[in-house]
């Protein structure tokens, strides 16, 4: 089975910009998956989305839809539809007219258009709003109309450009679940653009983490979180301790690393590192435990509700963060030396 979308060595540099917006990006999006392009603003994720939609053309490379190149095809000839960040609902049309627009432009029969509008109104719970103008709807309702309008044209791929960013937190959480439900019910490939890592981890089947016009890593949420491919991904997704260390010994795949000031950390997967190499070790604060050989001086504790986040100074001057269940024991007093431990399978090794 061919992939839904293939991005092949796509390059794009905007006029007057010193750096390419996309510097030769290649990957594939599978059929029926919820695929997320995640990255900070300016990483090229929206440019890529706009190229799939046809609003921008790549300088080099190719974009394939169902195995066929769509280069040079105008947006109105591509079987993909977009949910815009600003929703871009036509203000002079009612909800029903907005939803009917795509099917109408496709030249469908009237009965078919009516049927599709009714289906979208039901699917997106817009009952009783069909004859309202967009300005008479709340932000969440406008969002659902934008989704319905894009889905009514029965696209092969639905593109979503930060569609939840204008909603408040509670509504955003609701819409995350709603979007996932829609994707599973319709079976349409979703390509979702966001800078919100939590959103990406919650909804996606796979995520492409992007930075500076390059893809940093592609994988399932758990892979991205637990096995970040490089320092950027480790830092961008979730909270991470990063410490400089030198490899002092190897034992099979595992390696022993010495921190400046004497402490040692064992990493389970260090097969690529020869002794003597200077590396950066990364591990999540929630994988740090109390009791161990990694000694650090307690600085302060931040109460987070379910957890407590401890900040402690390592001998090399850097800060170690440990996230522990709150409510058990009270955190160590400030200024005391505390022994911490990290499980070897929680430690990632990055050669700079």
């Amino acid at each position: 089975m061919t992939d839904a979308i293939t991005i092949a060595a796509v390059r794009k540099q905007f006029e007057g910009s010193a750096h390419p917006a996309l510097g030769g990006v290649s990957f594939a999006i599978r059929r029926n998956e919820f695929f997320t392009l995640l990255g900070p603003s300016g990483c090229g994720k929206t440019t890529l989305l706009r190229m799939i939609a046809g609003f921008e053309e790549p300088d080099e490379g190719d974009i394939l839809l169902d195995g066929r190149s769509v280069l040079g095809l105008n947006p109105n000839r591509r079987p993909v539809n977009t949910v815009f960040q600003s929703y871009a609902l036509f203000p002079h049309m009612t909800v029903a007219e907005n939803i009917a627009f795509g099917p109408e432009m496709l030249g469908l029969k009237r009965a078919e258009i009516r049927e599709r509008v009714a289906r979208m109104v039901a699917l997106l719970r817009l009952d009783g709003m069909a004859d309202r103008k967009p300005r008479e709807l709340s932000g969440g309702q406008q969002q659902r109309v934008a989704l319905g309008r894009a889905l009514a044209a029965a696209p092969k791929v639905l593109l979503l450009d930060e569609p939840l960013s204008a909603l408040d937190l509670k509504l955003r959480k609701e819409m995350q679940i709603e979007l996932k439900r829609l994707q599973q019910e319709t079976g349409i490939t979703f390509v979702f653009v966001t800078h919100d890592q939590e959103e990406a981890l919650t909804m996606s089947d796979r995520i492409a983490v992007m930075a500076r016009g390059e893809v940093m890593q592609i994988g399932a949420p758990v892979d991205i979180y637990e096995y970040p491919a490089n320092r950027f991904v480790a830092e961008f997704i979730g909270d991470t301790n990063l410490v400089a260390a030198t490899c002092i010994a190897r034992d099979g795949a595992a390696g022993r690393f010495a921190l400046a000031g004497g402490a040692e950390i064992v990493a389970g997967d260090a097969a690529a590192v020869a002794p003597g190499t200077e590396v950066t070790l990364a591990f999540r604060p929630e994988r740090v435990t109390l009791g161990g050989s990694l000694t650090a001086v307690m600085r302060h504790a931040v109460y987070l509700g379910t957890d407590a986040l401890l900040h402690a100074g390592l001998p090399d001057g850097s800060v170690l963060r440990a996230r522990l269940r709150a409510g058990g024991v009270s955190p160590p007093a400030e200024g005391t030396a505390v022994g911490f431990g990290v499980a070897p399978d929680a430690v990632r090794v990055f050669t700079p």
Partner: protein
Amino acid sequence: MKSLFRFPGTATVAALGLAFLYLPILALLILSFNENDLITIWTGFSARWYRAVFTNADMLQAARNSLIVAACATLFGTAAATAATLGVARARAAWKAAVEGLLGLPILVPEIVTAVALLLLFVFVGFELGLLTVVIAHTVFCIPFAYYPIRARLAGLDPALSEAAADLYADPARRFLRIELPLLSPGIAAGAMLAFISSLGDFVITYFVAGPGATTLPVYIFGMIRIGITPEVNALSAVMLLASILLITIAFLLGRHSDKQSDKGNG
């Protein structure tokens, strides 16, 4: 406590300024109803001069010319300006600046200079001065008058609206007819109204490029004033004044209506 946002004296100046603006208009309106043949002596209220105006064949011909010219120049100017707005919005920065400079030129250049230049052109290429030359000349300044309100309207629209239409399979023609034209229409209406009023009111340029048979109302009035100030001139001027006040009031009310609509749209 006195409001912070009140500056003493400004109200007085504003009131005097407003009085200054309306004093001549009121004087003209009142004097136009003077019954006497001599404009300075008030002998009673009468509408006889208005009757004289509306039965004056020359004046009616001039009014007809004015309306023909204004209608044509508004139509051509607004159509060209609407298309130009869409073109300029999508052009590269350097082209955009060049074309916008060109579009603004008729407003920047003093009327008398435009008048001289156009007269020379028409004589040079051998156009006979007449209604056609007046329409061409008026279209020149109608383009910028129509352009700016339409551009302002476009600037307030989300560019994603056009993209959304394209994304939903609308080809460029249907994108324009179904989305861009309806959304721009308040700006187009305002621009057309401004162009129409400017064309109706123009004197200097018309004076230069109108042939003998193409006298417009302002040129006709100028001729009358030159010959002598009669009560009939008063009445005719008052009619022109009231007509433009009526037009601008309609434009204002229309504009307020569509503003309210789009305000809601942003909310």
